């Protein structure tokens, strides 16, 4: 079973998304902000990270850059989730080191497809 680290500050969205992921057979670990996320990464290596971009404190771009800069975590695929859907968001995500990108509200089918592409399951 693959472990997903879900970084999302909005409680409802976190709860909803984690439950849907679990229903689809994933093990989900949750983090509420950047510090939480980095703490979790010190004790575990997930198979994939779902990263909300709009986070309090360090935002998703910043976190992704840090993750990709650390050799112990750089290999973990990151999918950015953004509510912006502004032109240029995609470029910014990729530039920060994200492996893929999806917009919120999440279309669960398309998100699962993207995840499968990255972790091969």
């Amino acid at each position: 079973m693959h472990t997903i680290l879900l970084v999302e500050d909005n409680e409802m969205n976190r709860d909803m998304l984690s439950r849907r992921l679990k229903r689809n057979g994933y093990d989900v670990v949750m983090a509420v902000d950047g510090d939480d996320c980095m703490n979790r990464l010190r004790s575990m290596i997930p198979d994939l990270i779902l990263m909300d971009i709009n986070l309090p404190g360090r935002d998703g771009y910043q976190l992704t850059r840090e993750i990709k800069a650390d050799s112990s975590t750089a290999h973990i695929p990151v999918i950015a989730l953004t509510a912006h859907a502004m032109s240029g968001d995609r470029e910014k995500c990729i530039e920060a080191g994200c492996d893929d990108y999806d917009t919120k509200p999440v279309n669960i089918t398309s998100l699962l497809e993207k995840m499968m592409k990255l972790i091969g399951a």
Partner: protein
Amino acid sequence: MANKRDPKHKAHPALARSYWPRSFAYAAGSLLVFAQVPTDNTIAQYVVLGFGFLYPTLFYHLGMRSRNTRFVGFLGYYLDALIWSAAVIYTHYSIVLLLLAPILAAVSSLLMMGIKRAFLPALLMTTILASVWYFELAPFEPFGHLSLPQAIFGWAMLLVFMIYITSLVNGTTRSFVAARHELQEGNTKIKEQSEQLASITYVAQLVNSTLDLDQVLSTVMRSLNQVFSFTMMAILFVDEKREKLVLDRMSGDVSPQLLERLEGLDIPLDEQNSAFTRTVTDAQPVYLADVSKDIGASEGVSKLIYEIVPAKSMLTFPLRQDGAVEGVLVFANTRNYLDLDPSNIKEIGRYVTYIVSAIRNAKNYRAIQDARAAADAANVAKSQFLANMSHELRTPMNAVIGYTEMLQEEAEDRGLDDLVPDFEKIRSASQHLLQLINDVLDLSKIEADRIELSPEVLSVDELISNVSAHVEPLIAKNRNQLKITRRSALGEVFLDRVRLHQVILNLLSNSAKFTRKGTIEVVAERLTEHEHDLLIIKVRDSGIGMTEEQLERVFEPFAQADASTTREFGGTGLGLSISRQICEMMGGSLTATSEKDVGSVFTVCIPVEHTGVRAGALPHAKAADKSVGPVKHVLVIDDDASIRELMTRMLKREGFSVYTASSGEEGLEMAMRIKPSVILLDVMLPRMDGWAVLTKIKSTPELADIPVVMQSILDEANKGFMLGARDYLTKPIDRKRVLSVIGKLQRSDDKRVLVVEDDKDTREIMASWLTQAGWEVSAAVDGQEGLEAWKRTRADLVILDLMMPRMDGFEFMEALRQIPEARETRVVVVTAKHLEPEDLQKLNGSVERIIQKASRPADEIVQEVARHLGQ
């Protein structure tokens, strides 16, 4: 200098005035000599007589034809002395002959210079006579013979006298020259005055045409400095509480450091004795010929100002607005003392009235601009707010849709099938709400100017099939048929894929919604002819259609044809509004036609290869299409619509593609975009005139090579271009520019250049630059010499000054064009023209413009354009 074509040409005064005395002297002298000649030698007698009578006239005419009459005049006196001496010797020192010359010379000097100045010659004559008496040359026998010493003495006297007379004549000439200078000076003064008049009219026009106060100020300063010399000019305004004078702006010799030091030095209005405050309280101009003597100069803030700006002389004017003094205008000279009389001050006061109007205009304009900026800011803020709101709304929507979908799945899994349709309703409503939020976001982004197109090369066919695949379920829902028709090969376009997709999808889903069991047709075609390359996509349906009133409002946001349709058909009511805005951003349009109960047609029309510049400008002013072939583009810049149309018709008939612009700014923008082969430029344009446009074109590297044909009334300034000058240089000349202009016109085997320029320095410096650049340079000081030089050298290129003495540049051009061999010779005109306000004035003042222009043969203009294109 001689000029056969000038009928007013006259002999030099020295030559003219000496003619009669000389004639008389020679006549008398020859008679005397005649009497001395032995009577048996008749030939000698007649030679003497003939010479005496003919020589003065002959000499006069020879002198007239010579190139330097003054020199000939002097030469004449020496020749006279020699001939006279010869006669004296021949007559064995005849005392009468010896005396006749000084007497005549004295008489002639009396005639030429009056009694007072003829005193010295008279004195000299008396001395000679006295010395003759002293040497006891008497008895005065008319034909007596003298002894050798006496004769030598007499002869020496004669020579001294002649030299003296010559120098006197020289002096007279000098006084003539001085008188002419005085006349010229008088002329210059008159010219200055008329220039002043012209410049004040120019300032007046500038005030009416520009809102740029700084421009008005610097123009006024420039105009004034033609007569008076001020080094700086400042405007101070009374503040709102009417407590102090605050510096608003300065022009002239002003450095940023100086401005910084003056910062905050506001003059309290109750400051006593200050020239500034006196101007406000007395509402009268104050003139300080020597500022240091002013009491105010040693008190308060004014003193501090004088210390920073040590003005020698100063002149202030009150600036009155609606009766009250609102400020002070200060003219100052920090280098020299100025001596102004009341009439000068009055003169300057005339300019001040214009500055007052300019200030008022600028203030009004600023108020309008501020208001508009505030409105714009409010609008942007509103759009920004909407964008933020939409974003905030999407976050909870995320949860709503997510949980609903989840519950729906749960219900299905647990077999609670009766709940599934209700969850579906919640989901669908949420989706609709989300779509609405997205559309609002889109629309507000468009309105806040935050959407940027990212064009890419894409296949139209592929795009259409993508969209139809996307919309297939929606079309099937109402049991409609989708038909796709391609009227022509669609090829590839350079457009924003996502946005174009969005537009076509919107149109198709609208049609699908409002049509039942009908046909929806997509008709696509690519129209490519001349400068047009358009992509046209029509979406036609056989749906419920719209009435005319509905059609009118269909593109307004939230204005679905009927409010009830939202309930029946769904949709946000924003799609068409957004689609239209996207099309317009792409430089195209979205239009609709419809008939109630029959169907609607929506037409997207987008110019291909649009560069992403926001639409607005003319749809045909787009990049030239390379596939069309070598169509020559001509850009006509003229503010007169009838002229534009005339030119367009004329040039189109000749197979050119024609673009038009009605102002200099628009013309420049279009020139940058279309890079025309030739630009036809009107001299008199509103705001930015033709000369300014020309300067701009020639200083923009991308445009500098485009031939520009100036046109307007046949004024001297543009006559140069009409005569066929290929380019022009402005004074002061610049080495780089000279070499680049010449280099541009140079053909492979060109090596000879002729510089025709009356100013020695300019001529020599240009010649040295060109020589260094490897040209064979010849030079001439005026048109006439220029023509001769051209005939001699057959120069390939001519650099021609327009303003020259004798034969000016225009005459030179006319004459050069008469020479068949000179047809290939390219001429570059040197002019200071476009900088002179008077020239603008001259052009602006014309009322005959249209008539003149229309009376010019149309063929001439066409030929002119063709000539530029042909070479």
